């Protein structure tokens, strides 16, 4: 490290730079002044540098240091209406250290003439910076914004050489409005839910503006799967001889056994080639990554969850190895200097020296704040997860400059007694970008040369009796995709929302299955007008308008709150719904798990311990049995023939919960 630890107390300086995190602050300090000094004041590490011959202090925040809070602490009181922004240290003990940052900010701002906000250039970064300036009394000072997409020294120096004068705060306003509405939505709906299930031992129930529609989508999918009845069909395939060579072809799909037998009888019949087409298809490289796309790809390739991917990306960004990851852009502007980046990548990726395009392949999506995710060619990548994700980013970036992959496709159709069989072949001409981005494979499927009118003999017909399948369960990646497609949540918060569904035990497993608790909560909100995709999407659109400055934040807040309070009042008084909800969650407790076989009078109650262990316990004699830690467990109507305990079912597996069951010992 070039900087030195300062032994003298830090002096107030005329310039104050606010960074979002400590790592970022240190990178800014070393980029702007290799002789920077670091001071530790009450546990807060600040950096002092010379900027254009003036002294400047860099103060790192720790993400948000101000948050919303309500005076109404009693969880039984709702709706909560008044919220205030307060230092996080006074809201939650977990954030005590942020109190020192807020104090330091106030002291440093008092003497500063200029303030430069150097937080991440997005809604959250803007909100973090604005709140610090506002609540430290600095809004009347000269305010500037540093805009950068990577933490490389070059980018940082360039951004400080072209600072933006900050006169409007639309982006911060949109951020603050989102926080405000989400907090109100969350606190009130969560209190409503908790109020209804107070006597049931489930803790930390929550519901939110984005969490709600996402949970309801899982609920709908659960219905489609559990009520699914497969329908039979027959997939026909045939081995067809043309010019002495056998080709495996696909015949029609039929929906009755009689029809399938009619096709089977074609064995030995002679027809002819109806069409034979061959053409070259070009496959351009995929566009560079935005956040949603890399989260999907990391799940597909490494089975890495979306939130884990985001955390690895953030760590790579803070190490200046990649550009800012919370972006929806699929564009790579020339200002990032492709040539220099590719030059740096050559040592690890030789293909970076063989690029064929002067401008990269780009997608349609744009993000005014940041370009697509790209490697900087700098920074140290340490962990295996970081190496995997960095490799993905680097290969995708290089592939954007590679030539198209090209394949010769061949389509052959033969007709026998008015039934058509078809085959599709593929021959790789040029692997193009897939040489670098080898996560997409191309394989040859060679078909012989035939021409229209050639004789075709059906040698064998195979009938494959299949059944339609239910839609697949969502996994974190496909659910994220659904959220993105329906425009609910933001690129930065979607992964966290999915993680919350797991934390609250509303869902279980990689193939996301709703728990009974999840069913109950979803059922409670299924007809609620405030928990809909449309409502959530409308609000997102309005937040964008606030960001553009075309709508006043207050107008949107007032309208949203009105709808929310109306719904809460309605649900609070809906006794039938409330009773139903209670019964639903108690369903496991009251009847479904049956009588205790030990005392014969108590009920076997399903419990989940604070550490997540699940077990059954008799509410009278205390007899207990452990339950599988994952999956939706349902009672069956039968009892174990060995010990008399009620049998349980998880999926297709039926089991006796009694650990001392003689049947198990056998």
């Amino acid at each position, binding site marked *: 490290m070039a900087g030195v630890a300062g032994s003298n107390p830090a002096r107030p300086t005329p310039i104050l730079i606010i960074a979002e995190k400590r790592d970022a602050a240190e990178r800014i300090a070393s980029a702007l002044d290799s002789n920077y000094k670091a001071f530790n004041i009450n546990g807060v590490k600040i950096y002092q540098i010379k900027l254009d011959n003036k002294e400047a202090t860099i103060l790192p925040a720790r993400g948000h240091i101000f948050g919303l809070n309500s005076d109404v602490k009693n969880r039984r009181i709702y709706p909560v209406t008044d919220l205030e922004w307060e230092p996080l240290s006074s809201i939650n003990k977990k954030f005590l250290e942020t109190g020192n940052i807020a104090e330091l900010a106030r002291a440093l701002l008092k003497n500063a003439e200029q303030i430069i906000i150097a937080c991440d250039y997005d809604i959250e970064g803007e909100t973090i910076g604005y709140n610090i300036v506002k609540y430290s009394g600095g809004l009347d000072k000269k305010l500037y914004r540093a805009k950068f997409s990577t933490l490389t020294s070059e980018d940082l120096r360039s951004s400080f050489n072209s600072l933006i004068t900050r006169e409007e705060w639309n982006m911060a306003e949109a951020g603050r409005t989102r926080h405000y509405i989400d907090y109100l939505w969350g606190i009130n709906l969560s209190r409503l839910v908790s109020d209804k299930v107070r006597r049931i031992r489930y803790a930390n129930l929550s519901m939110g503006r984005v969490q709600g529609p996402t949970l309801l989508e899982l609920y709908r999918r659960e*219905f489609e*799967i*559990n*009520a*699914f*009845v*497969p*329908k*039979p*069909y027959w997939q026909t395939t045939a081995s067809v001889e043309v010019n002495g060579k056998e080709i495996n072809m696909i015949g029609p799909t039929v*929906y*009755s*056994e009689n029809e399938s037998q009619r096709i089977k009888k074609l064995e030995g019949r002679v027809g002819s080639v109806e069409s034979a087409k061959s053409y070259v298809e070009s496959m351009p490289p995929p566009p560079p990554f935005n956040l949603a796309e890399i989260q999907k790809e990391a799940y597909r390739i490494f089975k890495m969850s979306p939130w884990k991917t985001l955390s690895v990306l953030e760590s790579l960004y803070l190490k200046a190895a990649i550009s800012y990851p919370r972006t929806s852009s699929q564009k790579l502007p020339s200002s990032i200097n492709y040539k220099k980046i590719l030059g740096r990548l050559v040592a690890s990726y030789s293909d970076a020296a063989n690029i064929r395009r002067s401008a990269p392949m780009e997608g349609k999506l744009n993000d005014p704040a940041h370009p697509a995710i790209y490697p900087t060619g700098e920074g140290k990548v340490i962990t295996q997860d970081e190496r995997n994700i960095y490799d993905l980013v680097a290969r995708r970036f290089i592939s954007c400059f590679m030539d198209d992959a090209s394949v010769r496709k061949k389509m052959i159709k033969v007709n026998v007694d008015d039934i058509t069989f078809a085959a599709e072949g593929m021959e790789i001409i040029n692997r193009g970008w897939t040489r670098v981005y080898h996560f997409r494979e191309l394989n040859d499927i060679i078909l012989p040369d035939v021409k229209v009118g050639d004789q075709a003999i059906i040698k064998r017909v195979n009938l494959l009796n299949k*059944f*339609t*399948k*239910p839609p697949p369960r969502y996994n974190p990646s496909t659910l994220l995709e659904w959220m993105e497609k329906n425009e609910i949540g933001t690129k930065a918060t979607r992964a966290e929302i999915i993680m919350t569904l797991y934390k609250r035990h509303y869902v279980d497993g990689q193939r996301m299955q709703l728990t009974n608790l999840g069913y109950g909560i979803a*059922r409670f909100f299924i007809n609620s007008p405030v928990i809909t995709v449309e409502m959530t999407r409308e609000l997102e659109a309005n937040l964008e308008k606030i960001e553009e400055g075309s709508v006043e934040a207050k107008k949107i807040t007032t309208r949203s709150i009105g709808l929310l309070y109306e719904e809460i009042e309605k649900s609070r008084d809906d006794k039938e719904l409330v009773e*139903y909800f209670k*019964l*639903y969650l108690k*369903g496991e407790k009251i*009847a*479904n798990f049956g009588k205790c076989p030990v005392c014969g009078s108590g009920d076997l109650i399903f419990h989940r311990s604070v550490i997540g262990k699940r077990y059954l316990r008799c509410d009278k004699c205390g007899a207990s049995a452990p339950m599988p830690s994952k999956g939706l467990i*349902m009672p069956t109507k039968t009892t174990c023939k060995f010990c008399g305990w009620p049998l349980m*079912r998880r*999926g*297709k597996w039926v089991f006796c919960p009694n650990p001392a069951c003689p049947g198990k010992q056998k």
Partner: protein
Amino acid sequence: MNCIICGFPSGNEKLCFKHAVASKSLAEGYNAWKSALGISLDEYLNDIIKNRETGEWAVDVAKYIIETGDHSVLNL
């Protein structure tokens, strides 16, 4: 009333909301199976129970009909 299959509260209906949806799906499925294989309702229900793709609630309804002979829940 409680659901005749799982005992869950079902308002004024014989089946709870889950099993009601499954029962409707089971009735629709029978038409497809009948025209594909020309089988009877009992044969259909037995095949459906054994099929791995059948949803849990649909299996519950099919088993209930086989055990009790109560075809009324299907609304065919």
